[in-house]
């Protein structure tokens, strides 16, 4: 067994929103929804990305933000890229008969495979997808194909309901009983989702993010309290989150300094 990056060719690039593209790679990867791969651009960096397709070929969906993603966006179909994975635990759908999914921004990326998986298993699922604007709303049409119950919120009201994902979530939790709420998005949003789930006594599984190096559970860069996001996560359940003070409050920078989650989120935007 070796865990060094292999090379893959970019087969197809799709522009999902003005700032988000999907890259389909001719690289086989059997993965669960929520698992991720490490993408390597030689001479630049290596970063974790959730998988938005798996099987004989895999795909990642990326928002253009910092140095790495800017370099990735310069690549064209036919170009090569380094890849290793899949890593992490992924979402667990066992014993779930009725589900709710909450996604915010590019947090819709890991949700896509999950929604498709739940549909395949015939699990009734409500999906709430939040975005800043109509144009930045990721995977709305593909998610709509997986459920009759899709709610969209936008910060500016340019598409469907104006406001945050928590408003429709609260309405749903008020009237319906879910076996699990799955979520991915900014951690401030996920913290609110968690608090609502606790209030309505619904278990949740949330996909979190920390700065990552090894992806294999040894370097400790991605610690979330006592958990390793790369190995124990990136998906954490209610019980784990309940005993993790750092969730929604603190994270380590690249140097290992413990900072408030807001400062971490701002640093991640660079």
């Amino acid at each position, binding site marked *: *067994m*070796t*865990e*060094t*990056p*292999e*090379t893959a060719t970019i087969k197809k690039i799709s522009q999902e929103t003005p700032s988000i593209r999907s890259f389909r790679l001719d690289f086989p990867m059997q993965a669960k929804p929520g698992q991720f791969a*490490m993408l*390597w651009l*030689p*001479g*630049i*960096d*290596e*970063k974790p990305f959730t998988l938005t397709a798996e099987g004989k070929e895999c795909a990642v969906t990326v928002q253009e933000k910092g140095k790495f993603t800017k370099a990735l966006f310069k690549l064209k179909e036919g170009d*090569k890229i*380094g890849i290793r994975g899949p890593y992490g635990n992924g979402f667990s759908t066992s014993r779930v008969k009725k589900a709710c999914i909450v996604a915010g921004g590019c947090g819709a990326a890991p949700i896509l495979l999950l929604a498709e998986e739940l549909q395949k298993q015939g699990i009734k699922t409500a999906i709430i997808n939040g975005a800043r604007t109509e144009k930045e709303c990721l995977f709305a049409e593909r998610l709509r194909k997986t459920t009759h119950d899709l709610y969209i919120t936008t910060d500016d009201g340019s598409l469907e309901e104006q406001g945050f994902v928590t408003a429709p979530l609260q309405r749903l939790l008020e009237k319906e009983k879910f076996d699990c709420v799955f979520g991915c998005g900014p951690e401030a949003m996920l913290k609110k989702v968690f608090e609502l789930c606790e209030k309505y006594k619904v278990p949740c599984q949330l996909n979190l993010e920390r700065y990552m*190096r*090894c992806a*294999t*559970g*040894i*370097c*400790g*860069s991605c*610690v979330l*309290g*006592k*958990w*390793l996001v790369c190995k124990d996560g990136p998906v954490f359940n209610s019980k784990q989150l309940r005993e993790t003070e*750092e969730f929604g409050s603190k994270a*380590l*920078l*690249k*140097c*290992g*300094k*413990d900072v408030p989650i807001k400062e971490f989120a701002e640093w991640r935007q660079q």
Partner: protein
Amino acid sequence: MPLETVFAGIKLRNPTVLASGILGTNAEILIRTAKEGGAGAVTMKSIGPCEKDGYANPTILEWEHGLINAVGLPSPGYKNTEEELKQLEKSGIPLIASVYAHSIEEYAEIAGFAEKFKPAMIELNMSCPHSKGEGMPFGLDEETAGQVVKAVKKVSGKTPVMPKLTPQALNIASIASACERAGADAICAINTLGPGMLINPEVRKPVLANKFGGISGPAIKPVALRCVYQIYEAVKLPILGMGGISNGRDAIEFIQAGATTVGVGSAVYYRGIGVFKEVCDEMVQWMKKNNAKSLEEIRGVAHGH
């Protein structure tokens, strides 16, 4: 309990120690490594003088026979580790505070800071092979290594001081002797071997962002064993032996070479955080099968033939 060990005056429930640079980025994961994982003692990731990011990724990779890493000694800066050190002090778990620096004075400054939180030991990282001007340059010659130990001993109070040595030194045993003369309380050996490198032939480029990195894991076990064996013959100090220990039998080999405690690092990759407990169980099984009543009885027995 057959595995209880006294190491430089520190009582440990077992001789397995989490090696520095593995997992030790915050107090919670270190406490988990001891409580859930079963480590007898844990080492915090080396703390340096100031905030430093380390290298871009890839920084740590598994290849066929071990790991290679060039993380580049990232550090929040020692002053930013106060909360973690306090939490670890409160936990009562035997903690080895590891320190790296750019100068002899800086080693003393950071070790003096760490000492305030009463760690079980202070480890001096004078052996990191992939960070410029830090680590290894201090462990390559007897005089410098001795000066670092001497300077740290002046500020370390009752806390035992343990330099971690590099297999790149021409004569690791004479470095260990110099550290002993300078007042060291124990010796840790070895840090990663190398540096080495990996190339991705399709990409036609080195894989590590830093090109070169330290090698650890099964591949380096024979070198590490030889180093521990030579150090044992050169000094009277207890030795924390490490380098490629993946199971109980590996650990027994290090004890027979003369180690008092055994470090486990890369094996966390192969066997997970519970590797410490597994290594301990395997050591006990080996002892039963081979009629060894205590580790004391087999320590250093490979010598004198």
